[in-house]
Every structure is written in structure tokens, then in C-alpha cells.
């Protein structure tokens, strides 16, 4: 027993069987997200009380069709159920079974039951089966499969009390295993049982089947099993095939007395009618692109007021902090480092919440599977997968929720490619940078009668990002070695109305995970950048106030400008400013000077910081920090070497290309780290994207100069 004394339950079931609904119904908001050791998978657990008041914790295991894992996520299921020494090892397993496709669901049930842990069957969607004129005899089901069966309706939350009560009762063990593991490997099963002190035949057999994916076995133990397998001629796949076939035969035979099928699939025919429209050659794509357009609009437009509110709120908070706390380094750190850093994390929440609202509605309704179905062939050409569509499109709003949305791609290679190329899509943070640069260097002219040239260039920037993403995916397709073979064998679930409770829990859970996990890293880097920009070495920085005052006096500049000049001067001589000057030789071939260098460094935190930094460097007062004033200042800037305007077409295009490709978003890096659980991928991404940004900008500047 762990620190929570009480019943430990594991919830297992097929995808789409209603597992998440049941979990949400049982636990409400008493959920927490943790990690399984060594896998990129959230461990979602929750707590509730049984009918007799006993506390219980329940783990929501990933949906799977069998305990033989196909993806990293599915591996967790067997790991949790097989290691009796682990702290997550359950006392009871609830297997949720979808009554409308009983046969397939029972495969997993019989596998799990054979592991020797007390198991209860929660029979869900009996009403769907009834509508299909299938009557299921629960009594016969209990008798044939030797288990306690509780009928529930996970969507409506019916039958929960019965389920909670069943958990307090003693669960009788079945007389014998559904599948006799010994029949396939009479020698190995007893050997492994003895060596690992196991009581259960099937578990011992599974040790042999899944030796290498098991985390808790030592290398010596793995070798012991591997040697025994060679000695007794244990053939994994052949045995697995025979086991699966045998189980299905047993299930089909037993089901004859359980199901009375008057065979008329009402839901199925309704679903098919909807499919005829939604997967139609013309309407199918038209509807899909309309939904995309809506999603895109909502993330851009509906999130905007909330993001502005958060932005304003934090600016206000920072201002008040400065006003009310005593002057000093700590106050500055809080007001200029911590609060804006926190704001920088929270500002993404409206977009994350809206995106996941859409995604979970699409998933709950069954439409997502059709999107994947429609797009698979096109995406496959580029090393992607039908399931990459949503992340890529979402990347236009923000790469963070987009990368979080890659979770449901089973193939690790496809998922990694999707994660890797998604940040190349032009996200909304690039928009302010694009806007100001385009306004600066592209003339506002009408071309071909109706199009505004600036608008066309802006669209071109989005296209550029998309092409870069697709081509990078294509390249990675050939470089990356597949850990697992990609396949597309996937259930197309029937259409259903989304369950709002589940939608809400998804939004809440994803936002919370983002704030807690990525937030920590974003906050830390924000503080580091603040320190770099607010402190500097040597006398020039320490005596900033005196130097600027003297300068103002000698140059006869109005005292009102003092604050602006001071912050500009301080930034120039800060560590960030020093860094800007240090990298000047490297960025000179792109046409940038040290001022732009500083902006590049500070906008590593987030691209949109570019505009703010530029404003500070050219000492634009805070009260006049609007686009037009910044534009005027930039336009007046003269290149000391040539005497021409600094912001020429060449520089503008070079900067545009740099911002289109460069990985300047630590939030994204933090999320990629979180999703891949290694720094390898975010670092590679940083190098790769900065590399093409640099080369692209270099090429553009040198050609246009």
C-alpha cells in the first residue's frame, strides 16, 4: 500500500468504449496528471469514495485493443498490470466494455482477466446495442465469462453506484484462465513462474512475450528469459497469433448464449448516411475546410479579447507592483521579470483552451477519425500521417497547443516529424513582426486590380512557412529511422453528440498541464533574459543616470525624453546589449546591426518581443508605443556605412525570412521537451530552424543588396 491507503483501481478499455467518460464521472475534478516512468505519457489518476466510504484511487490507462503494445502509450497498460511491486499495481481492474461491439471488446477483457488480478466488467452502451436490436443477457455474460458485470451508462453517469458497490464486495476468481498459456509453452511458463515467483501462468507467458519492453526487468533477468525462449523454441508472433485466434473462437462460442441479435444496425446506418456526406469527394473536403476556417478564425479572433485582457492585466499588475513595493532590485525582478514572465505563460491559455475545445468536440463526435481518413493519402507523401493535419493547421495559431495535439499519432516517427515541423508554420506571434516589417519595406500598392501588395506578401509569408514545414517533413522521412512500423488500421467510430463534460475536462486538463509544465521553463528563461537586459558590466552601465543626464544637457534635448533615453542607454550597455554587439559580426552578412542583434536575443523568449525591444532601443516612449511611431523611427534610421535608409528592402526581406524560420519561442522548446521527454529534439529543432533562418536571410540580403 502506498501513502493513500485505500483501494487501487486500474481502468482499462478499448478506445471509444467510454473510458474517459467513466473516469470523469467517477472522479469529477479530483484528478491529477503525473508521469509514468520512462514514457511520454501522462498518468491521469483520480480519487473517489466507494459506497462504504473507503477511499479509492483510480488510474486511467491509455485506450488499447489488447495488452500487446503497439505504441509507447499502450506499453504502459501492460507495465502497470504486470509489476506487482510497483506503486501503481492495482488491487482491482475495471475493464470497460462497449456492448455494441462486444466481441472485440471482450478480447482485451479476457486478456486482462487472465493476469490474475480481480477484474470487474463495466458494460457500457447497452442502450446503443438495444437500439441495434441486440439483446444482451447480463446473467449469461456473467456466467460465461465468470466475472461480475455492472451495466453502466458512462455518458449519463448511470450505474455508478452499483459499480462503486461492486468494488466493495469480494470478487470471486474465475475457476480457470480463459486461455491456457501452458498449452503453447509447457516448459517456459513454469520456469519463469519459479524464477520470478509468479503465481499466474498467463503473466509468466507474457514475461516471455514482452521481455524487452518491460522496464522493471534487469538485463540479467531479460537474458535469463531470452535464453529460455531460445532453448524451448518460443516463437513470439506465432504464439500471439494462435492465442488471439483461440481467444476469439472462445469468445464467439460463448457469446452465442449471451447475445440475441435481431440484426439491424440503426446507429450504423445513420452513421453511414452521415459518412456519405462527410467523406464525399466534394462536400467532404468543403466541410473540412469550412471547419478549419472556423477553427482558425476562432483561435485568432475569439482568443484575442481574452489575450488582450491578460496582457493588460499583467501590465497593470507590474505597474502597481512598482508603485507600491519599495524601489530596489527585488521589486524590479518581480515587476519586470516574474510578472511579465507569468503573463507570457498565461497569455497562451485562451488559444490553448479554444483549440482543445474544438479538438475534443471533433474527437468526441467521431469526426476527427474522418479527417484523418480524408487526409491520410496526401499527408503520407510527405512522411506525415492523416493525424498530422490538425497539429499542422493549429500551428498557424500557436505551436504550443499544436504540439500537444500530436499525442494521438501512434507511430512515433510520424509524431516526431509532426512535432519537428509544426513550429515552421507561421504562428500568431509572428504576425506583429510581419506586420511592422511589411509596412516598412513593401509599398502599399494595388496589384492586378484588386489585391493589396502588402496583403499578398503577408499571405506569402504563411505559404512560405507551410512549404518549409512540408519540405522539412519530406526530408525527415528519409533521415529518421522508424522505431515502429506505421500503419493505419483504425476504428471509425459511429457519430455521437459530444459529451460536454468531457470537452470541459479536456480543456481544463490541457491548460493546467501547460501552465504547470511548460510554465516553469518559460518563467525561468524570462527571468534570465530580464537579468541580461537589466544589468550590465562596467562603469558605463553603473553610471547610466549621470551619463544620460550629461548627454541631455550637452545636446539640449528636452528633459521629457530622459526616461526613454535612459532605458535605451541602459539596454545598450546591458549584458544583452553586449551580447548584441558580440554577435554583430555574425549577423552583419544578413544586414543586421547590434540593435537588431539585441532584438534577436530578447525575442528568443518570444517573437513578439521584437517589436517591444525595437521600441526600447530606438527609445520610443511607452505612451507613444504604437505601430506608426515605431515605423517612423525605423524609417528615419540611417545606415552609417552607406548613408542610405537602414531599413531597406533587402534588410526587410532578410528579417522577414529570419523570423519566418527561426526557432524563437522558448515556450515551444519547453513543450517539445515535455512531449519528447528529451532535450535532443528541442535542441535539434533550435539548430535546424535557426540554421535555415540564417541561410535564408543571408541569401535574401546578399541577393537584394
Amino acid at each position, binding site marked *: 500500500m502506498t501513502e493513500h491507503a485505500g483501494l487501487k483501481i486500474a481502468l482499462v478499455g478499448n478506445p471509444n468504449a467510454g473510458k474517459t467518460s467513466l473516469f470523469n464521472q467517477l472522479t469529477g475534478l479530483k484528478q491529477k496528471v503525473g508521469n509514468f516512468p520512462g514514457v511520454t505519457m501522462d498518468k491521469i489518476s483520480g480519487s473517489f469514495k466507494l459506497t462504504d466510504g473507503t477511499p479509492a484511487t483510480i488510474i486511467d490507462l491509455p485506450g488499447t485493443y489488447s495488452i500487446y503494445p503497439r505504441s509507447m502509450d499502450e506499453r504502459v497498460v501492460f507495465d502497470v498490470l504486470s509489476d506487482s511491486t510497483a506503486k501503481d499495481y492495482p488491487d482491482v481492474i475495471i475493464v470497460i466494455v462497449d456492448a455494441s*461491439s462486444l466481441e*472485440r471488446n471482450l*478480447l482485451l477483457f479476457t486478456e486482462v482477466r487472465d493476469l490474475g488480478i480481480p477484474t470487474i466488467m463495466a458494460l457500457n452502451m447497452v442502450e446503443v446495442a438495444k437500439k441495434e436490436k441486440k439483446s444482451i443477457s447480463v446473467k449469461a455474460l456473467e456466467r460465461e465469462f465468470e466475472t461480475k458485470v455492472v451495466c453502466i451508462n458512462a455518458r449519463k453517469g448511470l450505474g455508478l453506484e452499483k459499480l462503486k458497490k461492486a468494488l466493495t464486495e469480494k470478487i470471486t476468481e474465475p475457476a480457470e484462465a480463459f486461455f491456457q498459456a501452458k498449452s503453447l509453452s509447457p516448459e517456459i511458463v513454469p520456469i519463469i513462474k519459479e524464477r520470478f515467483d509468479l503465481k499466474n501462468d498467463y503473466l509468466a507467458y507474457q514475461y516471455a512475450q514482452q521481455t524487452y519492453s518491460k522496464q522493471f526487468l534487469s538485463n540479467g533477468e531479460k537474458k535469463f528469459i531470452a535464453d529460455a525462449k531460445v532453448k524451448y523454441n518460443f516463437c513470439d508472433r506465432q504464439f500471439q*497469433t494462435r492465442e*488471439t485466434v483461440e481467444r476469439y473462437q472462445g469468445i464467439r462460442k460463448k457469446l452465442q448464449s449471451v447475445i440475441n441479435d435481431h440484426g439491424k444496425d440503426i446507429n450504423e446506418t445513420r452513421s453511414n448516411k452521415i*459518412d456519405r456526406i462527410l*467523406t464525399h469527394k466534394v462536400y467532404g473536403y468543403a466541410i473540412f475546410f469550412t471547419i478549419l476556417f472556423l477553427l482558425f478564425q476562432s483561435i485568432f479572433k475569439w482568443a484575442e479579447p481574452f489575450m488582450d485582457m491578460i496582457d493588460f492585466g499583467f501590465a497593470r499588475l507590474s505597474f502597481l507592483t512598482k508603485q507600491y513595493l519599495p524601489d530596489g532590485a527585488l521589486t524590479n525582478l518581480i515587476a519586470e521579470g516574474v510578472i511579465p514572465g507569468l503573463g507570457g505563460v498565461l497569455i497562451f491559455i485562451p488559444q490553448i483552451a479554444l483549440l482543445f475545445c474544438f479538438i475534443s468536440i471533433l474527437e468526441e463526435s467521431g469526426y476527427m477519425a474522418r479527417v484523418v481518413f480524408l487526409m491520410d*493519402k496526401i499527408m503520407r507523401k510527405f512522411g506525415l500521417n492523416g493525424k498530422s493535419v490538425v497539429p499542422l493547421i493549429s500551428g498557424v495559431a500557436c505551436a504550443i497547443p499544436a504540439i500537444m495535439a500530436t499525442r494521438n499519432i501512434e507511430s512515433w516517427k510520424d509524431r516526431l516529424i509532426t512535432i519537428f515541423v509544426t513550429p515552421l508554420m507561421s504562428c500568431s506571434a509572428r504576425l506583429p513582426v510581419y506586420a511592422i516589417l511589411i509596412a516598412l519595406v513593401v509599398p502599399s500598392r494595388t496589384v492586378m486590380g484588386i489585391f493589396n501588395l502588402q496583403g499578398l506578401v503577408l499571405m506569402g509569408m504563411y505559404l512560405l512557412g507551410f512549404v518549409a514545414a512540408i519540405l522539412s517533413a519530406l526530408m525527415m522521412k528519409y533521415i529518421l529511422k522508424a522505431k515502429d512500423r506505421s500503419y493505419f488500421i483504425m*476504428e*471509425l467510430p459511429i457519430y455521437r453528440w459530444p459529451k460536454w463534460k468531457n470537452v470541459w475536462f479536456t480543456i481544463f486538463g490541457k491548460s493546467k498541464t501547460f501552465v504547470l509544465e511548460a510554465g516553469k521553463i518559460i518563467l525561468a528563461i524570462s527571468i534570465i533574459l530580464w537579468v541580461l537586459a537589466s544589468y550590465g558590466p562596467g562603469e558605463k552601465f553603473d553610471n547610466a543616470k549621470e551619463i544620460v543626464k550629461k548627454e541631455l544637457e550637452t545636446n539640449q534635448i528636452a528633459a521629457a525624453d530622459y526616461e526613454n533615453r535612459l532605458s535605451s542607454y541602459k539596454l545598450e550597455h546591458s549584458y544583452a546589449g553586449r551580447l548584441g554587439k558580440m554577435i554583430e559580426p555574425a549577423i552583419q552578412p544578413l544586414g543586421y546591426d547590434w540593435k537588431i542583434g539585441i532584438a534577436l536575443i530578447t525575442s528568443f523568449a518570444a517573437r513578439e518581443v521584437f517589436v517591444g525591444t525595437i521600441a526600447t532601443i530606438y527609445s520610443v516612449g511607452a505612451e507613444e508605443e504604437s505601430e506608426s511611431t515605431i515605423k517612423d523611427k525605423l524609417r528615419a534610421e540611417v545606415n552609417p556605412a552607406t548613408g542610405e535608409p537602414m531599413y531597406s528592402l533587402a534588410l526587410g526581406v532578410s528579417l522577414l525570412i529570419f523570423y519566418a524560420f527561426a526557432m524563437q519561442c522558448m515556450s515551444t522548446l519547453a513543450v517539445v521537451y515535455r512531449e519528447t521527454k528529451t532535450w535532443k529534439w528541442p535542441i535539434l529543432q533550435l539548430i535546424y530552424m535557426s540554421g535555415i533562418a540564417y541561410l535564408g536571410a543571408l541569401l535574401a540580403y546578399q541577393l537584394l543588396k
Partner: protein
Amino acid sequence: MCSLAELKPGQTGVVKSFNDEYLSLKLLEMGVLPGTEVEMKFAAPLGDPICIRVSGYNLSLRLDEAKTISLA
């Protein structure tokens, strides 16, 4: 003998054997067993993947994958 990939929408067939061991394991788990009846429902607009009806539910798979399933 033909493969599942050759069925036209609405046609049915009975699974006979598989010629890809790795995929067959997944297919078996999904209820596509030798002796099971499958019905071709519809194909995606670009002809691939396809959707079949098996064991009381709809399953989608790519044409390449359907080719590995021989029908009796």
C-alpha cells in the same frame, strides 16, 4: 483468390489468410480473423484508405494493408 483491396463498395468476402505477419497480429486483434465476413463500405475520396465493416463495427485501413488480406 482476391484480396480485400479489390472489393467494390457493397461487396462482401470472407477472410482466408494474411501475407504480412506484423500487420496480421494487429488485424487479428481488431477482429479480422480467418473465416470472418467483411464488407467493403466506402473509400476515401482519393481512393485510399478504405472503410470496411467487420465484427459489427467500421474499420479503416490503407489499400496497402488491405492487400495483405486474402479472401476466400
